[in-house]
């Protein structure tokens, strides 16, 4: 349980921190501090269990059938890292409280800092590799947010982008590697993968897995050639640099390498990649660090160098080197974080981090100077400090790393040179900032900071000293627990002591110290002024390559967008149709397309005639749709009727009923819309005659014929094959016994696949509401505002019909039809209920019944006019939609009370006196929901559209004669506002 808390608390804290007021610096710091300290306490509390070799776990099943569980797992190694993350988090929070200025929006800072802490702890404690990658990416994202904290600075944005691009791409590679790893090991649980080491190394995928995992680790740990993001990341606030970019996040890469060390190491490939990457980073980072002008720049390059050292150790394939690597991860975290804090203090106190300008600060800030001096000495590897111990172990290991003189002599020599660099840049950092005459022209007068800001740094420096002097008593047990967790029985014996006698590593250490001193002296004497770039290395700036690649990518994307994409709908549709056609044609061409062998049914001439009419209607509609909309609409309706007859012909009575009712409402709907479209007269359309327009029509005609031909071919290819009954067998066989319904189509809709139908009617309801909402703000085009021509002419002749709601029947042309449709309404209502009720066993159902009733209602509107109809009865479509959804929903949820899953049908058989046996089913209730929703949605859409004409109706009759269109539109908009 405490494992879950350790991961969860930071995230909860992050959430709370985000909502605190933006000037609540103290509250934020208290919150973050309490979270970090609590986590530290929880981690420490688990030490007794962990040190006995036990693995603490907490598994929350997520998708156990796929081997995916939320698995937290803490062994000694994870414990050490969890402690590092939470303890360092506490120190950084304290430091940040004083570092952040009152003007900075602190909620964002602490919120992301805590989120990072949670992600990092989650990563460290992950017992499942996929989960590990998720947390891994989360650390990249939070790091992005923290680097870009001062997003008004362009270097912050640039640094954040670079860091995210590099580390997230590495994370993707890692995901690929992990997926393959899990595939080979037979599961993603860390324990299973760790146990499958031999199997994985022998597998043909091993090189691919290794390279992908290493890409992930090396990008995260800023190793050559991906190191360039780390110096750019220094645009982050200094607490972030101390925490993420020296102590914890950049360690994630080497953490993972050590975690998977038993699985992946031991091969030549591992040795060469890691040694080359590590050695390059070690030397180049150290060399570049000597020439930086920015204090944080020195520290960033030195971090690259020290991480290179760890990578190199991990690559050496010896167990002692692994111990040294883990040891150095901890040591580096302590001295580097404290140096970053010192750099922040200097920045804070003087207003600059420029090594050229800073000088002699030890007079003004002696405590800071002392702390920085000790930490820098640890970084340089001076005896009696922790850096010395792990560096000496490193020197010792380089001598036994491999065979052959090149490695046996070359590697120790390079290591010594790297040691010299390390001494040189440490010396330069301390000497230039703290010694010499006190700088005069600094932006602020240097002063010692508050104790709160010094305390974290001081604690870290104390740790450097204690570990350096009494390694066996301080860090010894922890290190042993951690390495035992990785290596198990094979943990080598080693001695953590300051004095091992006059050994070769000790000699190397002293050579490095002396060499570093000489390098710095030479530099100091020859070139007092440094331009901030390392000589020789400028050409190999990965950052510049990265920028160039990014700019080229953006340009290529722009080019692709300009050439491929279009803002014109016609081009887009052309592309969709074209690609669909080409894709289908490719399949047909590459596959074996032939007619099937099924017996074809004889042609019925009546059916053929039907489709002669249907096809003629379709083509006629296609030709007429531009200039004769009404004719086109009627012809489309004709095609719809033929479609409906086709359904009826081929044993689909439900479809035929649905199609015919939908056809009616669709035509009415579009008729209502026609009024708002502009007049278009064929004669005066000159553009139609241009060559381009003609060419385009020819091209579209060819496409249309091709698509039609393709579809016909496809359909015939299917129809000439025998039918498969596998899918329908279940529904036909179980319809009566299980659902108690004879109409299989309806049973599928309201029972077997009721959940789909539920979603479907929800969509219909949403569409109806959207239509309603869009029409509330409808603004017609100016020339469409006036009355239509027919009504205007009526008005001119004085025969215009002005509706009078008080009359018994609507007067005018429509009086006789009005009588008829009034009589029709109860009949139609009855028929709709009839269709609804019988739907389970015979053609019908909620959709059809609902559409019948909706049609009857619409007919009232059409004949009587909206004003007259609504003066009498009013159907409230919104209530119908809501009740329909509610009914369908309750029909589904009622199954829960019977202990069944959602939408399982329940039946109730009653034997009532007088009435007799009654069979009640929750599917009927569901179908009633469908019915009501369809009525509501259809009526809502049609009435909302019909009411648009009503808005102009309400104006005084004089408008018909008015020729002032501008006046008209103003009145129209006023009536709309009033509406």
């Amino acid at each position, binding site marked *: 349980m405490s494992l879950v808390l350790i991961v969860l608390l930071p995230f909860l804290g992050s959430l709370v921190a985000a909502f605190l007021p933006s000037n609540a610096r103290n509250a934020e710091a208290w919150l973050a501090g309490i979270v970090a300290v609590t986590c530290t306490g929880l981690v420490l509390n688990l030490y007794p269990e962990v040190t006995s070799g036990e693995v603490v776990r907490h598994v929350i099943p997520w998708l156990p059938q796929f081997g995916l569980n939320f698995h937290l797992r803490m062994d000694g190694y994870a414990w050490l890292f969890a402690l590092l993350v939470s303890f360092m988090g506490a120190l950084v929070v304290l430091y940040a409280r004083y570092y952040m200025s009152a003007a900075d929006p602190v909620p964002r800072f602490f919120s992301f800092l805590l989120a990072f802490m949670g992600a990092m702890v989650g990563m460290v404690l992950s017992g499942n590799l996929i989960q590990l990658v998720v947390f891994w990416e989360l650390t990249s994202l939070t790091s992005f947010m923290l680097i870009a904290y001062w997003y008004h600075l362009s270097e912050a944005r640039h640094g954040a982008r670079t860091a995210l691009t590099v580390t997230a791409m590495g994370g993707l590679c890692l995901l690929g590697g992990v997926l393959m790893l899990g595939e080979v090991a037979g599961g993603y649980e860390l324990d299973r993968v760790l146990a499958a080491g031999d199997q994985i190394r022998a597998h043909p995928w091993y090189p691919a897995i290794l390279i992908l995992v290493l890409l992930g680790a090396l990008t995260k740990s800023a190793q050559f050639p991906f190191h360039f993001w780390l110096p750019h990341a220094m645009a982050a606030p200094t607490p972030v640099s101390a925490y993420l970019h020296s102590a914890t996040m950049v360690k994630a890469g080497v953490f993972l390498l050590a975690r998977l060390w038993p699985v992946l190491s031991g091969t030549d490939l591992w040795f060469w990649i890691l040694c080359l990457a590590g050695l390059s980073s070690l030397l180049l980072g150290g060399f570049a660090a000597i020439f930086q002008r920015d204090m944080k720049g020195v520290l960033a390059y030195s971090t690259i160098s020290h991480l290179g050292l760890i990578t190199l150790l991990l690559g050496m394939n010896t167990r002692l080197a692994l111990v040294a690597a883990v040891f150095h991860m901890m040591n580096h975290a302590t001295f580097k974080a404290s140096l970053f804090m010192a750099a922040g203090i200097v920045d804070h106190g003087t207003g600059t981090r420029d090594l050229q300008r800073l000088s002699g600060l030890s007079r003004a800030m002696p405590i800071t100077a002392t702390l920085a001096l000790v930490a820098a000495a640890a970084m340089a590897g001076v005896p009696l400090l922790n850096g010395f111990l792990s560096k000496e172990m490193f020197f010792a290991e380089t001598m036994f790393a491999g065979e052959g003189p090149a490695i046996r002599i070359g590697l120790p020599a390079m290591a010594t040179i790297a040691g010299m660099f390390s001494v040189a840049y440490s010396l330069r950092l301390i000497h230039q900032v703290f010694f010499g005459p006190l700088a005069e022209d600094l932006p602020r007068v240097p002063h010692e900071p508050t104790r709160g800001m010094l305390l974290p740094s001081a604690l870290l420096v104390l740790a450097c000293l204690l570990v350096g002097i009494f390694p066996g008593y301080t860090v010894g047990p922890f290190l042993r627990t951690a390495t035992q967790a990785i290596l198990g029985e094979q943990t080598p014996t080693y001695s953590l002591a300051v004095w091992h006698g006059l050994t070769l590593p000790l000699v190397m250490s002293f050579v490095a110290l002396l060499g570093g001193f000489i390098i710095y002296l030479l530099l100091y004497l020859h070139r007092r002024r440094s331009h901030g770039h390392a000589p020789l290395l400028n050409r190999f700036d990965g950052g510049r390559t990265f920028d160039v690649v990014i700019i080229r990518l953006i340009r290529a994307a722009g080019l692709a967008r300009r050439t491929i994409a279009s803002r014109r709908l*016609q081009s887009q549709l052309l592309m969709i149709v074209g690609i669909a056609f080409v894709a289908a044609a490719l399949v047909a061409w590459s596959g074996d397309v032939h007619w099937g062998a099924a017996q*074809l049914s*004889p042609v019925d001439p009546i059916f*053929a005639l039907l*489709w002669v009419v*249907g*096809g003629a209607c*379709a083509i006629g*509609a*296609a030709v007429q*749709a531009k200039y004769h909309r009404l004719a*086109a609409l009627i012809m*489309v309706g004709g*095609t719809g009727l033929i*479609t409906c007859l*086709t*359904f009826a*012909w*081929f*044993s*689909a*009575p439900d*479809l035929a009923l*649905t*199609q015919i009712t*939908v056809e009616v409402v*669709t035509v009415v709907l*579009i008729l209502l819309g026609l009024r708002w*479209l502009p007049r278009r007269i064929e004669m005066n359309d000159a*553009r139609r005659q*241009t060559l381009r327009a003609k060419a385009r029509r020819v091209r*579209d005609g060819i496409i*249309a014929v091709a698509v*039609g*031909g393709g*579809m016909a*071919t496809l*359909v015939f290819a299917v*129809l*000439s094959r025998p039918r498969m*009954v596998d899918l*329908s067998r279940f529904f*036909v066989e179980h*319809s*009566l016994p299980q659902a108690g319904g*004879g109409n299989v*189509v309806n049973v599928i*809709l309201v029972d077997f696949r009721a959940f789909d139908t539920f979603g479907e009617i929800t*969509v*219909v309801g949403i*569409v109806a509401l959207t*239509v309603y909402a*869009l*029409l509330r703000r409808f*603004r*017609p085009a100016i020339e*469409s505002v006036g009355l239509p021509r027919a009504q205007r002419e009526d008005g001119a002749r004085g025969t215009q019909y002005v509706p009078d709601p008080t009359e018994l029947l609507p007067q005018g042309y429509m009086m006789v039809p009005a009588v008829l449709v009034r009589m029709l309404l109860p009949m139609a209502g009855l028929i709709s209920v009839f269709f609804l009720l019988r739907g389970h*066993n015979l*053609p019908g159902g909620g*959709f059809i019944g609902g559409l019948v009733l909706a049609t009857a209602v619409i007919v009232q509107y059409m004949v009587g006019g909206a004003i007259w109809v609504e003066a009498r009865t009013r159907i409230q479509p919104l209530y119908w939609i809501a009740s329909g959804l509610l009914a369908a929903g309750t029909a589904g949820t009622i199954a829960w009370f019977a202990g069944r899953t959602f939408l399982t049908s329940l039946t109730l058989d009653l034997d009532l006196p007088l009435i007799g046996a009654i069979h009640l089913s929750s599917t009927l209730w569901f179908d009633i929901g469908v019915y009501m929703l369809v009525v509501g949605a259809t009526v809502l859409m049609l009435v909302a559209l019909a009411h648009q004409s009503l808005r102009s109706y309400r104006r005084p009759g004089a408008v018909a004669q008015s020729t002032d269109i501008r006046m008209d539109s103003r009145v129209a908009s006023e009536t709309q506002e009033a509406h």
Partner: protein
Amino acid sequence: MEIIFALAIGVLSGSGVWLLLRPRTFQVIMGLSLLAYAINLFIFAMGRLAIDRAPILDPGDVPDPTLYADPVPQALVLTAIVISFATTALLLVVILASRGLTGTDHVDGREGEA
């Protein structure tokens, strides 16, 4: 019958696609209606053509699926018809609103070439 059915779908989808590529909104909405017929018939055809074999069972019948038309495509098409009505309505309102806002019934909201 099969060949007529196939040709019918071909004509409907050809006319529909031609209208879809036209510049005026009304043409597009008509084209979509025609395409909707074609696609509904197409899905329906996946269950093959059967005459007088509506998938409606009586309690005494043998539930042998080969004796009935395929109910699955029918169920799919039934909801598809209703949904295509809803999308037609939505599209119609959108083009009316676009016409009111832009003053043109061109699909791009501004007069292009033809």
